[in-house]
């Protein structure tokens, strides 16, 4: 039984390769869908025509969009990928606290981090940073500000020596 099955299968494959000279678009689409399933990529519709894959649908973010494209390109026989995926609209960010509270928190956090040259003012969750801090501290000071729950930044902080 097993031998018979294998024989039928080989004949089928031989005929198929003879007829198409390669994988059909339907096979390529299936291969991409299998790859997506293995990589846990969901929400993507695949269409393949003449070896060109078109991806449509909505995914979580730009990283997911890029991941799907890379996965599809990795499938043997795919000539190119048209990535028409869209990303989910983002919810609106809400500031972590009212402006005076944020100003107080950032000022205190900056002081603790030794970022004494930086000054902040917050308006509607958006912080404007002015002043100057040393180059060695610069990235750390920006981190402190961005980790305070703000929703916008105008960074005019100067990077000193």
């Amino acid at each position, binding site marked *: 039984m097993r031998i018979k099955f294998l024989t039928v299968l080989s004949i089928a494959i031989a005929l198929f390769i003879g007829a198409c000279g390669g994988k059909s678009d339907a096979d390529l689409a299936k291969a991409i869908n299998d790859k997506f399933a293995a990589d846990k990529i969901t929400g993507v519709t695949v269409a393949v025509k003449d070896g060109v894959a078109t991806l449509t649908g909505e995914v979580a*973010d730009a990283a997911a969009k*890029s991941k799907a494209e890379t996965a599809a390109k990795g499938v043997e026989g795919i000539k190119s990928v048209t990535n028409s995926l869209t990303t989910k609209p983002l919810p609106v960010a809400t500031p972590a606290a009212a402006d005076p*509270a944020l100003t107080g928190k950032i000022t205190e956090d900056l002081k603790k981090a030794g970022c004494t040259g930086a000054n902040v003012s917050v308006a509607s969750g958006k912080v404007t940073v002015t002043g100057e801090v040393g180059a060695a501290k610069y990235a750390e000071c920006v981190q402190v500000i961005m980790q305070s729950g703000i929703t916008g930044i105008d960074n005019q902080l100067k990077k000193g020596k």
Partner: protein
Amino acid sequence: MSAQEKYVSILELANQNGTTYELTEGDNGTLVVTGTAPSAEAKQALWDEYERLDPEFKGGDLILNIQTAEAAAAGGGMHTHTVESGDSLSKIAKGYGIQWKAIWDHNRDILKDPDKIYPGQELKIPM
């Protein structure tokens, strides 16, 4: 190009190094990435990538708000204020835009009297 596409390599790195994140849209299309990194190294890797893309973080189109898992577990929404000479509960409260009683309520374990606070004391500030 959207901020998401501009900074896609940071998001990809986060997916690789086990950082969980949420995206929201802030002021004027700013991409706000709020997340938790499994380690300080993972967090630093994201910041290094941000610095590579925007060396002085001046674009104003990305806010990277990443905590380490450790800090997230310890913090719990409280902020710490270190008392300085000249501070009073009402003065500190004003700085954070809250009522002095809110600070008092959260610090009764270390404060005996709302009028007596000392430099160096670490007060919990509800945010």
